C-alpha cells in the first residue's frame, strides 16, 4: 500500500470496548499491508507494547488518520490541526454529561467538553464511521457529511477462552443468576436492575442471585449508593464484583440465566452481543442505541415497571419454549456482528480514503 494509516485515541486501556475495536482495526490495516500504528495520550499498563505515545507522533501530510471519539480530550484540537492526507472519525458516542453531574465532576466536564468538541470538529473529517444508526443520526444532526454506519468490531475468539473455574465452582447450583456487565455508572442505571431483582427474589424466586459485573473506579459515590440501596432493601445475593478479570467475566456469562440491561444511554453496548454469544436471553430497556444493537431479538421493554420486568425474568426462566426462541433470535442477530464481516466492511471504507 505504502500509505501510513494511524489510529489515534485519548486513552488506550486493556479490555474496554473502544480499545478492543482499535486493536481489531489495527489487525485489518496490517492485513491490508498498511504501515499502521496506534497513538494514544494515555496508555494503560498492559498495553504499552501495542501503542505509542502521542508525544512520539511525527505527522506526515500523506498519513491517513483515524480518530476514535468517545469523550472530550485535548486531542480533538490536535486532530484538527494535524497534517494528513485524509481524516476519518470513528464515533463511539459520548455519554450525556448530566448522568455524571452528582458523581464525578471530572468525567462530567470531559463529557461536556466532548460534546462541544464534536460540534467544532464538524468538517474536519473526510469520512465518519458511527457504531450505530443512533450515533450516525447524532453526527448528521451536527452537520457531518459522509457518515457511515459500522458496528464496533468484537473478537469472538476471545470468548472461547476458558472461564474462571473458581467462580464457576462457587456458584454452580440451582440458583437463577441475573447478570449485567458494564461499568458501574449512573447512565447504566444499575439501581433499576437491583429494584427488579428485589421483586423477583422476594415474590418470585428466593433462590436467585444478581451479578453486577463491572469496575466502579471513579464512580465510588454511585457504587456506595447502590450498596446503600441494597442494604436498605435488606437484599441478599447481590454481587457487585468490581474490577474483574476477563476469564471471570466469561464465567459470569456462563452462569447467567438472564441478562438484564436497564441502561439509559449506550452508543452500542457490547455486552448485549456478548450475551447473544453466550446464549443468555436478554431483557433490555428501550433507550439510545440499545434497541438497534438488539435488532429483532431478545426482549425489549419500553417502561421501567419493576414488577413487569421481574415477571419477564420469570417467564424467560420457566417458559422453556419462550427462552429457546429468544436465544435463537439472539443467535441469528449475532451473525450480523461476525468479526470478519465487520472487518471487511471496515476495509472497504478505508480503501475509499487511501
Amino acid at each position, binding site marked *: 500500500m505504502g500509505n501510513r494509516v494511524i489510529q489515534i485515541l485519548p486513552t488506550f486501556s486493556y479490555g474496554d470496548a473502544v480499545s478492543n475495536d482499535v486493536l481489531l482495526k489495527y489487525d485489518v490495516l496490517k492485513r491490508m499491508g498498511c504501515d499502521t500504528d496506534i497513538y494514544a495520550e494515555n496508555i494503560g499498563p498492559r498495553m504499552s507494547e501495542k501503542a505509542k505515545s502521542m508525544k512520539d507522533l511525527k505527522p506526515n501530510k500523506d498519513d491517513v488518520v483515524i480518530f476514535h471519539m468517545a469523550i472530550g480530550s485535548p486531542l480533538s484540537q490536535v486532530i484538527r490541526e494535524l497534517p494528513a492526507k485524509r481524516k476519518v472519525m470513528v464515533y463511539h458516542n459520548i455519554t450525556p454529561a448530566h448522568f455524571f453531574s452528582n458523581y464525578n465532576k471530572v468525567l462530567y466536564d470531559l463529557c461536556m467538553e466532548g460534546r462541544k468538541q464534536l460540534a467544532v470538529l464538524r468538517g474536519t473529517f473526510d469520512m465518519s464511521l458511527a457504531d450505530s444508526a443512533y450515533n450516525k443520526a447524532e453526527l448528521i444532526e451536527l452537520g457531518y457529511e459522509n457518515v457511515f454506519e459500522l458496528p464496533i468490531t468484537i473478537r469472538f475468539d476471545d470468548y472461547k477462552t476458558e472461564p474462571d473455574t473458581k467462580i464457576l465452582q462457587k456458584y454452580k447450583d440451582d440458583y437463577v443468576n441475573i447478570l449485567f456487565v458494564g461499568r458501574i455508572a449512573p447512565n447504566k442505571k444499575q439501581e433499576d436492575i437491583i429494584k427488579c431483582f*428485589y*421483586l423477583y427474589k422476594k415474590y418470585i424466586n428466593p433462590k436467585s442471585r444478581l451479578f453486577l459485573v463491572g469496575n466502579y473506579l471513579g464512580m465510588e459515590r454511585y457504587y456506595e449508593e*447502590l450498596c446503600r*440501596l441494597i442494604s436498605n432493601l435488606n437484599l441478599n445475593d447481590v454481587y457487585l464484583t468490581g474490577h474483574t478479570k476477563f476469564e471471570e467475566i466469561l464465567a459470569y456469562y456462563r452462569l447467567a440465566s438472564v441478562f438484564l440491561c436497564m441502561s439509559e444511554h449506550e452508543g452500542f453496548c457490547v455486552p448485549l452481543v456478548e450475551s447473544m454469544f453466550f446464549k443468555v436471553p436478554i431483557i433490555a430497556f428501550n433507550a439510545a442505541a440499545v434497541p438497534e444493537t438488539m435488532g429483532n431479538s431478545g426482549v*425489549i421493554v419500553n417502561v421501567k415497571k419493576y414488577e413487569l420486568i421481574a*415477571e419477564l425474568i420469570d417467564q424467560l426462566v420457566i417458559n422453556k419454549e419462550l427462552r429457546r426462541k429468544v436465544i435463537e433470535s439472539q443467535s441469528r442477530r449475532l451473525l450480523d456482528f461476525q468479526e470478519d464481516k465487520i472487518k471487511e466492511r471496515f476495509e472497504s471504507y478505508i480503501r475509499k480514503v487511501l
Partner: protein
Amino acid sequence: MNNNLIKIDYDNIDVEDIMRQINQNINNRNYSSDDLRILKKDLSISSLEGKFDLTKLEQCVALTNAKCTVQKASVIKSHRRIIGPFIVFFKRLIRKLSYWYVQFLFDQQNEFNISAANSINAIKKYIEQEQETRNKMLDVLSSKIEILTEIVPKIESMERTWQELKQAYQELYNASQETHKACQELYDASQELKIAYQELYNDNQRCRTAYQELVNANQELRDDLRNLSGNIQENKVVDKLNSLMKMIDEYRRIEEITAARMRRIEQYIKSGDNSPSGLVKDSSPSNVPEVIDMDYFLFEEKYRGSRSEIKDRQRIYLDYYRGKSNVLDIGCGRGEFVELLVENNINCTGIDLNLDNINYCKDRGLPVIYADALEYLQSCEDASLDGIFMAQVAEHLNPNDLIKLIQIARKKLKTGSYFIAETINPQSLIVFAESFYMDPSHIKPVHPLTLKFLFETEGYVDIEVKYLSPVSEDVKIPKLECLNDVSNIEKFNAAISHLNNLIYGYRDYAIVAKR
C-alpha cells in the same frame, strides 16, 4: 396496550399471551404496595436534574435537623453474669481513656453540623418566604394581567381610531390646502379681471365719447350742409369734411385697439397664466427671446405712429416686390406692409413674435404666422422666396442672429429678388434722444455702413442705402441771415448745417440688397 410495554417480534411468539400470563402472575403474587412505593424512590443522593421540589426539601431538612448532632454512645451494659462486670469495666475504661482523643472531634463535628443545619434552615425559611412573596406577587400579577387583557383590545381599537382620525385629518388638511390655493388663484384672477374690466370700461367710455363727438360732428355737418344750401362756402365744408374723416379714423383706431386689448385680456384670463407670453396658440416657435412683459402692441400703437402713416411711409418699397408671388415680411407688426402687398395682389406671409400683433393681423384677415424668423427661414425651401422685407427689426436682434438671418435669407431667396431691411439710423442723434431708447426691446442700433457691409460680405449685389424719415426743417437750427457784414457767417452756417445733419439727420434708413 400490553404490546406497548414489551417488544418481542419474531418466531410467532404470542406477546399477548405472555402479557396475560405476566398480569395474572402479578395479581396472584400480591406485590406489596409499600414495596412498589419504596422502589419508586430515587437513590439517596437526588439528582440535580428536574425541578425544585419544596416538599422534598422539607423532608431532607427535617432529617438533617433530626440527625445533626452525633449522639452520645449508649450506656455500657452486659447480661453475662460472671464476666459481665469485667467486660463492662474494661469497656468503660477504654471509653474513658479514649475520651480525650475522641470527644473534641465529636464536639467540632457537632458544632459544624449544627451550624450547617442552621444555615440550611435559614435558607429553607428564606425560600418559603420568597415563595410566599412570589405567590402574592403572582396573584397581583394575574389580576393585573386580567385588567390588561381587557384594556389591550381597547387600546388597540383606540389606536386604530387614532390612525384613522390622523389620516382623515391629513386628507382634510390637503384638501383645504388645495382649496386655499384655488381660492387664491381665483382671487388673483378676479383682481386681474377687475382691472381688465376697468380698462375696458374706460375704453368703452372713450368710445362713447368719441361716438358722441362723432354724432355731434355729424350734427354739425348736417347743420353746415343746411347752411351750405343757403350759404355756399366751399372751403369751409372741405375743411369740415377732412376733420370729420380724421375723427372717423381716430374712432376706428381706438376701436381696433380696444378689440386687441379685450382679446389679450380674455386670453390672459382663460389661460390663467401670469405672463402674456403664455398665450401660445397654433404653431409656436421654440426660439422665443426673453419676453419683456409689457403690452408691446399698445406701446407701438402709442409711439410708432398710426397704421396709415406707416403704410404711407412703406409705400416706397412696393416697386421692389411688384409681380412677385412669395414675399416674406419679417416682424410684420400690425401688418401694414403685408396689407400693402395684399392690396397690390402680391402673395406674401408676415411673421412676428408678438402674439398680440399676430392676433390683430388675423382679425384683419391678413396672412400671418406666429413664428421666429430664423426658424421660419430654415423651414423654407432653398430659393423659394422672391422677396424679403424686414422693417424695424434689425435693432431688436443681437449681431450674430442678424448675420445668421442675412446668411440664411440669401439661401432662401431666388436670384434677382430683393431683401430690404429698414432700421433706425444711428447717424442721427435725435433718434437716440427721441425713439431708440424708448423701446426697451431694442438691443443695439446698426450703423448703415455696417449693415451694408454685412450684406456685401454675404454676397448680395446692387446694395443701396436709402435714408428716410427726414426731420422737419422747423426743428432744425436755422441759418443766420445777417444783413450786416459778419465776417465768418459762411463758416458759421456751414457748421450749423453740419450740426443739423448730425443731430437732425434722417431718422431711418433702409438697405436694399439684391440676391
